[in-house]
């Protein structure tokens, strides 16, 4: 399947939803409405949404919300959620104190 995406697609007007105030990313307190608006601002994949809004940048690293974010973005774009890649998982898996992290020596 071609991954080519024209970022000037007409997604139609933004229609407010009753649950736009719903918090989706709990760590960073990002709402459904903010995610939907970010798609209209041109953020068409989960990495750009993350960098734009901080979804999944908090303590849980998106382990709680990434699939919710994905389905919201997919719906805005008229895609199936599986067509959107999740963001890269980043080390460390859990937050680690700098002093502990600094112990690892080659």
């Amino acid at each position, binding site marked *: 399947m*071609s*991954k*080519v*995406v*024209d*970022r*000037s697609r007409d997604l139609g007007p933004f229609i407010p939803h009753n649950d736009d105030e719903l918090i989706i990313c709990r760590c960073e307190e990002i709402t459904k409405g903010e995610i939907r608006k970010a798609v209209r*601002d*041109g*953020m*068409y*994949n989960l*990495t*750009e949404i993350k*960098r*734009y809004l*901080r979804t999944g*940048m*908090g*303590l849980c*690293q998106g382990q709680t919300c990434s699939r919710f974010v994905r389905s919201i973005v997919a719906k805005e774009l008229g895609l199936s959620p599986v067509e959107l890649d999740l963001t*890269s998982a*980043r*080390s*460390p898996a859990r*937050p*680690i*104190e*700098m*002093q502990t*992290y*600094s*112990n*690892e*020596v*080659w």
Partner: protein
Amino acid sequence: MIAMNNHAEVIIIGGGVIGCATAYNLAKKGVKSIVLEKYEIGYGGSSRNGGGVRQSARDPRELPLAMYGVEHLWPQLSEELGVDVEYCQKGNLRLAKTEAHLKILETLVESSRSSGLDVGMIGGDEARKICPYMSDEVIGASWCPTDGHANPMLTTLAFYKKARELGVRFITGENVREIRKLKGQARQVITDETIYEGDIILLAAGYESRAIANTVGIDIPVQRILLEALVTEVQPRMFDQMLGTAAADFYGHQAKHGSFVFGGSTGLEPYISEQYAPVTSSLTASSTCRGIIKYFPVLKDAKIVRTWAGWIDECADHVAVIDRVEEVPGLVLACGFSGHGFGISPTVGLLLSELVMNTAPTLDLSALRYNRFKAKA
């Protein structure tokens, strides 16, 4: 036959901060462009740098670009683009722990001062007055009060958003294979999927610019080098300065969000980095943490939540190429930013729009020519 909507006055290869900033500047002047990006907006170095908006310790060839941006462009950038890019202008401290460090800093300071930058040396106690959290081991620093930092991811996306609103067409997932000349003029951009055509082609594709420029016989000595960054959980507000060290063991700042963003390297990157993707090494974050704790013991209990890596486009002489290519009319090059392109990106966007439109550039770019590289003998 080129599809009608695959034609624009300018085709920009690369949707990083340089490509997006140039597309924005062109759109402001009424010039339409199409931006082609292989992955996503800001995939390369644009989203993988420390966020420094720094003039101090710049090579004299690019210092005027940094100074112009700090004076004329950064202060109102958030307002202009309609997105808070988290620009914070509270100075840069470059720290020294040894006499050898002080020597390195003095040389850098002297060079910057001779180009007219307000930067000087201060003692350890004076540095601790500016930033009270640093270790007593710090014996001196260079101090540039007009330096600062911003959020590179938001800045890139802000240029993209505004350019898109002004009618720039961005196409992601387009892998550029070659530039093709028609009647001696660079005109077509061939991708895996289709062909685009423009009067001018701007190549701003990070380290991959080299392979693409090769398709029209131009070779720029750039290679990719892996850089890594890490971020802590939110900390109490501690300081606003951009930090670096003479030993270059880490650099970083406290972001508006409250987390600390630090970058660092082991020095082994060219030899041990993975080749298939920009992935973090098990060595680097630990090494960076050791560097940070030596200068800021207070941060030893701060938790690292995330690390990430990216390839920068390192030029043979560590300064970018920004130029029109004489042998290939219609081709403009912007690559080799060597890991310090973010801070000058608003200026570079302006200058490139002038090069593309063939108007006199606001600043002299003759030190950044593409044909400056010579063999040893």
